[in-house]
Structure formats: structure tokens, C-alpha cells
């Protein structure tokens, strides 16, 4: 994968995705390595995303890379009206790889076209966030021992969540059975469901999550945002139906884990945090290992 940008998850074959996950497992065993000592990683966050940025920067720092960059557009020359192309071309002179978060959809692909160095897309608008998908896959593989033949439930806002769309698409490669729990207003878009059908896989749709919990290996929770509802009364009506509380986890499968891309607001009760099923903080930690694997692979040091 040397010098290969990661703009969209489909840029990497299934074998290459698995290779990244295996390499991430190696870094988890031995995270502090000075293998990127002679490399500079640029971290360009045109919109703030503290969690993703710190995860990337921590991954780079643990491998001894130098990090340059900015954490929001206002502290860069973008605020002076510089084009994305000019920023990317300039920063390419200062770094070996660029990690970029940008509010516009398609910006990562465009940056990749103009940049002489590889690009890792850390989120381009509502379009793609492939490293989140890889860390979700890593978390599933790690907790279940495999990616194939699992029952996976997605709960909450399935309509607007880019994280959910990308993960569903990626899991379609692994004979997954999908359980989709959402208010009718926030159902999974038809093009994603079509993708499931095209792969001859099964999905079930629900408006309540209670009956789903005992059936699944992974319960992937997401946040329902008030702004997504035209009718505030409707939001009030549904919001409590999608909160995970500790007693609901009484009858789960032994291997069942709860994932969440974070930040969480109130959709998982804090009581759940200490349950054996809670995995979302470990999931966030896994993101660092996956990003180490990506940086090391693309920079060609492994």
C-alpha cells in the first residue's frame, strides 16, 4: 500500500483492508516503535474534529513521526482565501503524507489529485470517513474473532449517519445479517439497502430495539439529532425509544458488544459503561492502532 492514498474505503481491496486490520493488531501488541522517526505527517483539519485529529496525531507520535498542521481553518491561510489546491501543494513540500478533514464532499479526492504525497481522508463532509470504517471493522474482528457471518444491529439515525453507511457497505463483503433499528423518518437510505440486496444478504427493519438485542453479535448505537426532525413533537416522541439502558442487556449473547462512534450524548446510559458488553471506549482506542497501521503502510516502513 506504499504511497497509496486512502480517500474512500473502496480504494483498498478486501485483502488490503484485512491486511491493515492484521497490522493494527501487531501495533496493539507493541505500540511504541520509532519507525516513523524520519517522517513528517501533516494534519490538516479544515474543520474541527478533536477526537479524530488527536487519534491520528497520537498514532503518528507513538511511532515517533513529526507532526505539522492546523486544527481549524481559521488558524490557517484558508481564512485569507487560499484555495484548497494551493494549501495542499504548499503543505506537500513540508510533509511526507497528509491527513485531511474538510467540510466539502469530494475534497479528499480532489486533494489526492493535486498532491504529490499520499492523502488519508479523515472525513470529507457527509461523504466518506474510511478510517472510522476500518476501526469499526477492527473492533468487530477483535471482539468476535472474525468478520464473517455475524448478526449486526444498527440503532438510531441510519439516514444521515455517514459512519453507518460506510460500515454497512464494508460489511456487505462478509455475509453479514443486518438488523436496522430506527424511527421511520431516519431509515437507512434505499441505495444502501440496495447494496445489501445486490450482495444477496438479508436485512430486517425495526422501530424498536428490545427484540433485536438478544439476536445480535454487535449492537452499533448512533446518536439521534434533534435537528433531523421537522416536527419537534415527533422527536420528543421517539427519542427515548433509542436509549440503551443497562437492564436491556440482560439477555444478550455472551459475545455481544455495544459499539458507538462517539461522541455520545444520552443514547447510552452511563450505567452501561461498566457492563461487559460496553466496548465504545476501547473502540476509540482501536482507532489509534488502525491509524498507525495506515501511516506505516502508506509510508512504506512495514
Amino acid at each position, binding site marked *: 500500500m506504499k504511497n497509496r492514498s486512502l480517500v474512500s474505503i473502496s480504494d483498498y481491496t478486501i485483502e488490503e483492508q484485512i491486511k491493515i486490520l492484521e497490522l493494527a493488531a501487531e501495533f496493539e501488541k507493541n505500540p511504541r516503535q520509532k519507525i516513523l522517526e524520519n517522517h513528517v505527517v501533516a494534519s490538516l483539519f479544515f474543520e474541527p474534529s478533536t477526537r479524530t485529529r488527536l487519534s491520528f496525531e497520537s498514532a503518528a507520535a507513538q511511532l515517533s513521526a513529526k507532526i505539522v498542521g492546523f486544527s481549524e481553518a481559521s488558524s490557517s491561510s484558508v481564512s485569507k482565501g487560499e484555495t484548497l489546491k494551493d494549501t495542499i501543494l504548499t503543505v506537500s513540500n513540508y510533509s511526507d503524507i497528509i491527513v485531511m478533514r474538510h467540510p466539502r*464532499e*469530494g475534497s479528499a479526492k*480532489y486533494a489526492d489529485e493535486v498532491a504529490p504525497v499520499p492523502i488519508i481522508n479523515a472525513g470529507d463532509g457527509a461523504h466518506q470517513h474510511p478510517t472510522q470504517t476500518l476501526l469499526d471493522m477492527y473492533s468487530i474482528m477483535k471482539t468476535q474473532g472474525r468478520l464473517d457471518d455475524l448478526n449486526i444491529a444498527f440503532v438510531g439515525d441510519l439516514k444521515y449517519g455517514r459512519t453507518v453507511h460506510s460500515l454497512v457497505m464494508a460489511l456487505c463483503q462478509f455475509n453479514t445479517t443486518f438488523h436496522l433499528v430506527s424511527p421511520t423518518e431516519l431509515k437507512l437510505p434505499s441505495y444502501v439497502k440496495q447494496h445489501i440486496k445486490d450482495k444477496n444478504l438479508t436485512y430486517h427493519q425495526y422501530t424498536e430495539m428490545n427484540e433485536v438485542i438478544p439476536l445480535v453479535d454487535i449492537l452499533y448505537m448512533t446518536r439521534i439529532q434533534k435537528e433531523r426532525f421537522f416536527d419537534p413533537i415527533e422527536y420528543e416522541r421517539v427519542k427515548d425509544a433509542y436509549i440503551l439502558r443497562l437492564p436491556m442487556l440482560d439477555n444478550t449473547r455472551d459475545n455481544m458488544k455495544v459499539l458507538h462512534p462517539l461522541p455520545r450524548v444520552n443514547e447510552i446510559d452511563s450505567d452501561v459503561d461498566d457492563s461487559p458488553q460496553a466496548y465504545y471506549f476501547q473502540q476509540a482506542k482501536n482507532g489509534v492502532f488502525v491509524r498507525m497501521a495506515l501511516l506505516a503502510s502508506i509510508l512504506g516502513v512495514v
Partner: protein
Amino acid sequence: MEERKELKVNAIENGTVIDHIPTQSVFQVIHMLNLNECENQILFGTNLDSKKYGKKGIIKVSNRFFAPRDVNKIALVAPTATLIEIRNYKVAKKKVVVIPNTVDEFVKCVNPNCITNHEDVVTHFRVIDKKDVKLQCLYCEKTTAKDNFTFK
């Protein structure tokens, strides 16, 4: 060739005639083929009577012959158009336009948050539906349908 008493748009000796253009698309076709910057003689007419379509437009470009990939893009706005190559006042070749597999440059992406609408980026689309004419942006992957076409 059918005989006509008088041609509304004069015949050309050599060049290309683009016939059966929907009347509302004539100026778009001129723009798409960059004819506004072409220095050859160009004759065009619109709102002409057509037996087949009621009304039509026609463009005649002297001494110019188009490569299919340059001209097929007009199929997006003028699917009924026919291309006639004229040599020595005679029809040398006649063909219909075909919707291409990819569309570059002149259509705008429908997604207001697409990078192509904010930076000086040449647009690229894959034609994912030739019947209803739907284009998928290679940058943001959103689909632009025929009814939403705006041209750069």
C-alpha cells in the same frame, strides 16, 4: 435528399449540420460545442418547422467535422439530434448522437456542498443511467438527474 424550394438556413459546401435539436436547447448546444469561440462560418436557426417534432433547431458549421466523443455530449440536452457531414454540398455521412459513458467539465454537480462547486475543479461524472440520464459525480458521488442539469 428531400427537395426543398427554399432553405431557411443556407446550405453549406463542407462541414457539419446538426439537425433536429430541440428548440430550447439550441443555444446550449452552441455553448457546449464552444461554437461561440469558433471562427468558422456558422449558420443556425431555431423554431423552424419540423415534420417529425413540430419545431426544431438546426446548426450548420462550415469546414468543421466533429469527433464523436466531442459531439456526443450534446445528447444530454439534445437526444434527438442528428449529425450530418456535408462534403461538396452532399450528405457524406449521417448519424445520431449517443449518450456517452462519462461526462466532463460542462455540467455542474447538484450537491451544493460538493468541492467542485467551491473550488476551480473540472467536474467529472459517470453516466449511471442512460435512459433517464443520471450522472454520478466522481468527487462527492451524488447523483445529478437530467432535470437538475445546470451548465458551467
